[in-house]
């Protein structure tokens, strides 16, 4: 589903990713762990097409096609979703209106009819239950006045609504209290399926208590230096990162 080949990328003149390789097959959940500054968020931003990142070498293939020239919206419509590390506040833009516009953009892209207000409300109320969110959040502006945990749950709500085939979770667990973490993890677990893949970026091992990644990768200075199963996360918890640093 996702294939990253020898990816070199950075911001302005600063090289951040230095030859990263990663392959994710349908149904797999991969976790990427690493310290702050190791390049985790750069990876997420390059995959989703944020402006300001230069790719100097390598490629990112999604379902066999290079997506580096695609607009962020084209990547989203193709099935890529990122849960933001820092969800953006958009004053005045109603959360329901935004979600409906996003869902209908996706449906139209897929050749389906857009949902009307009633149809959307029915669908979203169902999804709200999955993340234990009150429907009052639908009436508020996007992330405006939301607590940290509410913002992250709102990201998961968007993921459940847009039903991507590749979900990237950028530090979704950071700053979450344990109850919110459990809700987010449960949302993720219920959302797993044979044709859907996950890339979970975190620097805490804690989230991995509640989800079951198939692979854990360690990112240091822009390269994956070690890959393994879930037991690798446990090892990192005990030994830290320094034994992997040259």
């Amino acid at each position, binding site marked *: 589903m996702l294939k990253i080949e020898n990816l070199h990328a950075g911001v302005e003149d600063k090289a951040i990713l230095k030859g990263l390789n990663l392959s994710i097959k349908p149904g797999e959940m991969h976790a990427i762990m690493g310290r702050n500054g190791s390049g985790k968020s750069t990876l997420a931003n390059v995959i*989703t*097409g*944020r*402006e300001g990142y230069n790719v100097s070498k390598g490629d990112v293939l999604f379902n066999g096609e290079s997506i580096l020239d695609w*607009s*962020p*919206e084209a*990547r*989203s*419509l193709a099935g890529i*979703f*990122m849960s*933001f590390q820092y*969800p*953006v*506040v*958009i*004053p*005045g*833009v*109603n959360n329901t*209106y*935004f979600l409906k*516009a*996003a869902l209908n*953009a*996706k449906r139209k*892209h897929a050749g389906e009819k857009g949902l009307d207000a009633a149809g959307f409300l029915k669908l979203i109320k169902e999804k709200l239950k999955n993340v234990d969110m009150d429907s009052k959040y639908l009436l508020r*502006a996007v992330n405006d006045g939301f607590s940290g945990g509410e913002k992250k749950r709102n990201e998961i709500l*968007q993921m459940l609504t*847009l039903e991507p085939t590749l979900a990237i979770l950028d530090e979704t667990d950071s700053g979450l209290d344990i109850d919110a973490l459990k809700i987010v993890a449960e949302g993720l677990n219920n959302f797993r399926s044979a044709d859907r893949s996950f890339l979970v970026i975190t620097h805490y091992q804690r989230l991995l208590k509640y989800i079951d990644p198939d692979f854990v990768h360690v990112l240091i200075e822009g390269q994956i230096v070690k890959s393994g199963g879930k037991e690798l996360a446990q090892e990192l918890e005990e030994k830290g990162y320094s034994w992997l640093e040259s």
Partner: protein
Amino acid sequence: MNVSHFQTEFDKMMNRDYFSDKVHPLRQDAFSKFLEIGLPTKKWEDWRFTNLSSISKGNFRISEIQDAPKGDLDISPYKLKDIDTIVIYNGHYQETLSSIPSGVQLLSGLDYLEKTNSEFNSPEHSPFDLLNTAFMDSGMSIVVDSNVDVEKPIRMLFISSGLESLMVTPRIHIDLGESSSVTFIEHHVGNSTSFFQNESVFVILGQNAQLNHIRIQSNSVSTANMAKIQVEQNADSRYTFFQFADGSRLGRLNIHAELKGEGADCSLNGLALSNDSQHLDNHIIMDHQVPHCTSSQNFKSVLQDHSSGVFNGRTIVREGAQKTDSNQSNKNLLLSKNALINSNPQLEIYADDVKCAHGSTTGALDKDALFYLRSRGLDMLSAKALMVRGFATELLDLVKHDGIRDFITDRFDTWLLENTTA
């Protein structure tokens, strides 16, 4: 227009046999004062950023009977449900198209002045105020008796039309008696190719009276529109103002609100949308003269192309005006690198127990927010439009009357569609 040109037009005005000569001394006095000071120049502090060349270089004449419509007018594009409309076309009242509101006294501006001449003290602060008194030729005045709540909103629909360079000078007085209330809408539209409208509105609110004032400034983009709103508020009165401006080449709104009675509340709001070479200004003076009054100013501008604008907001809290609670906010969204806004929020406080806040922000659309929306599948145009809409929503939502809000929102959406570029 140079001075001799103004003089020629003024002489014509004074010789009109169908205008009452009782206000002539008032006109003459104002015109003499105008001649002494002339039109503002860029050296005047309040006029530094407003280019008046379309007026100073224009060649306007006062509107005559022959400038009134020859046949039937079609006002259906401006249809609003559940309101009474008074139609004024190139400065001429259109009786057959108007519906007269009930529960109020409706007088021509001149009749009003004639009645109150002896006591009327015209606060004239600028050359345009003086010109208004000298040339006033249209508009209506509304007097509401004490304890009357006027149910239906009253609209004055000003239409400018034709190829002639006309100068039209509406004069409106709104007097609300104690504990009365009304919604008043000024609606400025037209297709005129050259037009100078210089309007003055005088609002006096009796104790506990409430005026909800909406101004839709959508005149054609080749016109110059100067507006002055002078507000005098007595105790416990409430004045709520909202302007939606997307019209005229040069549009300048001046509001001078005087809070003279304790417990008065004044809320001034505006949304200006400009493109091409439009220039739209908001100049506000909020004058707290007594204790326990509240006021707010919330003005936003969205500027496209090389359009420009000014926000000049001055909140004055006079000595003794304790417990004043006032805030002022100006936010500007620049959709183009060539757009320009001058924002100048000012506070002058001479009392020591007050709460005053002010703030001003100007910027382009937030890139992070744009990326966020696009990462959810919205294309660039939709994402931008959604954000501009979000920027304006709180102001559009201030309009409580459904029909009027829908009308303004439709205009806003049309503007958005035409002015959002990827």
